[in-house]
């Protein structure tokens, strides 16, 4: 054991090659991506086709015949046009089966929909009938452009960039190797040294995903995700950035070296 440790120390300490470890830590997306214009149009086209081609809704299964629920259901539906002999139908002869016009999509109004909208207008008297209003995909931190917040750019990956006071460039945090420690262990420990212990992370793998060779220095990057907690350094500037903001913040060479690792 001691012999091995001595070997590693020799490798790390020799001036010809210095090993450092870096950490690419990201917050994974919280909400799904906004579909592009093409995507949303195509989804709409396909879902309209699907609605046109779906089988008739078996209302008799959900609303038993002769019950109040069935009455309420049938009352809400739009009345179909029946075929009567000797009548001219300019939009095609009606073809009804189970009360559905077979040449069109079936539109179903559910009793719940009506309850929801009416209570929503009145302000919601009971918790049961209250309409569910989803949270906004754009948060307060988004509007304030608070780069240190993790509640920002919810549909993107956020990456941690730091700038030491002595340096000019923004980059991923890097740490000098301690004797006998492994790359990923050192990167995890290093993050807690600079950012405080109250941070919950998950290291993707003990394998480095990138090496940056700068003269004699070799920095091996370890990939990780932040799961909870706060990165709160004392004497360090930091920012959680998306890939787009990363491009604006770092130098051009650094971006070309690193961009394929970011999503």
């Amino acid at each position: 054991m001691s012999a091995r440790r001595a070997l590693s120390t020799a490798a790390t300490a020799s001036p010809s090659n210095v090993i450092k470890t870096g950490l690419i830590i990201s917050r994974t997306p919280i909400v799904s991506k906004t579909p592009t214009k093409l995507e949303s149009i195509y989804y709409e086209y396909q879902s309209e086709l699907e609605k046109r081609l779906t089988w008739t809704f078996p209302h008799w299964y959900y609303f038993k015949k002769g019950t109040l629920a069935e009455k309420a259901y049938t009352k809400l539906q739009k009345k179909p046009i029946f075929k009567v002999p000797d009548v001219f139908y300019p939009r095609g002869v009606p073809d009804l089966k189970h009360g559905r016009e077979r040449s069109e999509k079936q539109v179903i109004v559910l009793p719940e929909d009506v309850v929801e909208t009416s209570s929503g207008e009145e302000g919601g008297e009971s918790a049961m009938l209250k309409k569910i209003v989803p949270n906004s995909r754009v948060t307060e931190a988004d509007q304030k452009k608070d780069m240190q917040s993790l509640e920002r750019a919810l549909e993107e990956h956020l990456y941690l960039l730091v700038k030491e006071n002595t340096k000019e460039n923004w980059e991923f945090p890097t740490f000098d190797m301690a004797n006998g420690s492994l790359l990923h262990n050192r990167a995890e420990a290093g993050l807690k040294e600079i950012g405080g212990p109250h941070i919950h992370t998950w290291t993707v793998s003990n394998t480095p995903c990138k090496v940056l060779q700068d003269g004699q220095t070799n920095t091996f990057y370890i990939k990780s995700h932040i799961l909870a907690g706060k990165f709160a350094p004392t004497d360090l500037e930091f920012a959680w950035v998306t890939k787009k903001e990363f491009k604006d913040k770092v130098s051009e060479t650094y971006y070309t070296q690193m961009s394929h690792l970011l999503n």
Partner: protein
Amino acid sequence: MLKSTVFATAKNCTSSSALFPAKPMSMTFVRYKRTKGKELSSNVQKAITQMSVLSANRKQPKRLKLCPEDLIKHETIQRCWAEYQRDLRTERNQCLEAQYASMDEAMSVLEQLSPELYTAANKKDMKHRFPKEFRIPTEYPPNKIWYYEYQEGDGNTHKKK
């Protein structure tokens, strides 16, 4: 509607008169509640309803009949989508290839610089799993977006209050 009932009544009368000629003919016909087809037990009736949900019988809409112009439009849309998907796929694969090349390079360099670190980095933990806190992105964010109050040594982080 009226015509048909009259017709049915008349037909009924003729047949009954053939069977029982002695009875006097009456023009009023009373249709009672049907009793013959009602022998199915409630379980069978329920199963029939369930089968009607599963089956396509009488539930299928008319088939689509596209005119040549609409067909060409549809095919154009499909081709556009296929090409868009192909572009996305190519981009994704190129990104993965680049990532693979960079991790391969990193490991080759590490092998030369420090064999001990290399051995440790190449040791695969097959029981490594994604953490419990990992979740599939949803359409809208949760009420509490980020758990900032995490303390060192907390086991379960995303506890709801």
